[in-house]
């Protein structure tokens, strides 16, 4: 099976949050970047599928400036066979449709059997690129997938629904899946993987279609007002209990 994994490079989870001067994004100067964690699970699923079936190819695709090559190299080190970077110096100027369009163009050229991606990104969290990509490529998709099982001509996947429910879905290939985080165990990068990755192909392609005007725009970013702070609840046991119940009802929404 030929599998393409679309990955995104995002700021590290504990990156310092400082609003950029134009107020539309955070300062990128001292950010360090890493693979979007849900995409890491998509890559893991692809690698496991390849290992399970014993054949096939895993190609990682990432759109972005040159810095995303480090993330692609990491993916190669974890076991991907090839990598493609789609030149896009300013991802911020594109909306989901714009990003999905350049991904679709590059992926089409590979005509894979299966496309995997994480269910959403850690930075923007729109959670749509995969579905839009499937729509653009006119292939079926399924989201929030826990397990993938190849069945002859197609796939049987396990989809997560709300409140602990699941559902199996059968679908034909080629198809696109967005992978739920935590369904698999991620693997750690190894020295051997890094050394092998040096000899693997990493090619750069440029999108040919000009970007269309974005349908939605991010106008400004700002720090949310409420920062996590411990609120001490005091009073008699009954008073405390009443206040906790209130919190459980309206803030935790557990009642």
């Amino acid at each position, binding site marked *: 099976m030929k599998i393409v994994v679309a990955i995104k490079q995002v700021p590290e989870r504990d990156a310092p949050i400082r609003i950029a001067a134009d107020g539309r994004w955070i300062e990128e100067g001292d950010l360090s970047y890493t693979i979007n964690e849900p995409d890491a699970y998509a890559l893991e699923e692809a690698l496991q599928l390849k290992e399970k079936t014993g054949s096939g190819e895993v190609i990682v695709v990432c759109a972005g400036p040159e810095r995303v090559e480090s993330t692609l190299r990491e993916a190669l080190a974890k076991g991907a066979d090839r990598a493609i970077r789609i030149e896009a110096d300013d991802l911020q100027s594109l909306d989901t449709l714009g990003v999905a369009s350049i991904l679709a163009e590059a992926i089409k050229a590979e005509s894979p059997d299966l496309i995997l991606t994480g269910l959403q990104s850690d930075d923007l969290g729109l959670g749509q690129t995969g*579905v839009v990509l499937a729509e653009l490529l006119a292939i079926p998709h399924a989201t929030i997938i826990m397990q993938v099982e190849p069945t002859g001509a197609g796939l049987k996947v396990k989809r997560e629904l709300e409140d602990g429910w699941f559902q199996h879905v059968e679908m034909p290939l080629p198809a696109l899946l967005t992978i739920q985080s935590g369904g698999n165990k991620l693997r750690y990068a190894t020295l051997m993987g890094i050394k092998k990755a040096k000899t693997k192909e990493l090619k750069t392609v440029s999108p040919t279609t000009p970007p269309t005007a974005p*349908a939605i725009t991010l106008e400004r*970013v*700002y*720090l949310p007002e409420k920062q996590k702070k411990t609120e001490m609840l005091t009073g008699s046991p009954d008073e405390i*209990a009443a206040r906790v*119940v209130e919190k*459980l009802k309206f803030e935790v929404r*557990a009642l």
Partner: protein
Amino acid sequence: MSGVLVVMEQRSGTWNRMSFEALAAGLDLAAKLGLECTAAIVGDAVQSLPWQSDTQPKTVYAVEDSLLKDYTSDGFVTALEQLIRKLQPGYVLFPHTYQVRDFAPALATRFGQVLISDVIAIHDGPVFVRQLLQGKLNADYRHSSTGPCFVSVQAGSFRAEASSGGSMSMEAFAPALESSTIRNKPGERFRESAQTVDLTAAPLIVSVGRGIGEQDNLPVVEELATALGAELAASRPICDNGWLPMERQVGSSGQTVSPKLYLAVGISGAIQHLVGMKGAKTVIAINKDENAPIFEVADYGIVGDLFEIVPALTKAIQAAKS
């Protein structure tokens, strides 16, 4: 192009309660913009669904077809595309459910649009507020194109008072669907058989630590967990002593959990424990030592005797639930 269309969600004749939150958001937006609000519900034979709100949109369209009985992205996208082309709404709102995440981006793509997903607030403009970087940052989004603006709203962001009363007559909309265009074959929904405790998936966890003193005291906390419908977990010393099975241990040598609520009872919060539960969305801690490290990570802290507070809390929760 005008109006606000709220796409509500049901399954086998049961509302997804987030539907009414989305409706509340839609009505609110429509009122702000001076537009009409309509709603749609997709499925097979959904007209008989009892209306569960005191508020009402102008019209509710029952988008019905036997092919829409079980959810498929292909079916829903095609059906809703036809409805939207007919109604020409300026805004299409959804609850940000798993199902919406599965089809709404594709639906928006059909219109050359992008869904503004998981919105927590709508300000004048309209400006749609979303969270970025796992909630560390808020962002204002604006629709910058002609054509319908697609928006999904986060659970709990818009308040819908539940009501059993009210009724609503629905207008049928019959989309043109062909079974051959539906590529996915969904199976039955199922739950994992609960052989072992899977704390990692539990949305609510009540966790007990050394403060409980002895095994005989455990029922105090067990009752709280039962009242809350939460899984019972523990810190290492409790499992070490064999008071609770090892699989209920949270921490570096046990499970790593990320529930909506983590209620820590008598847990001081050694680092080995904290790393196992730092992903919890809300942490409530009850401990007699006001300097216990658990309070550093807690959202709500209660300093006091757990044997007084926990039974009171259990009673209050039972009362709130009944």
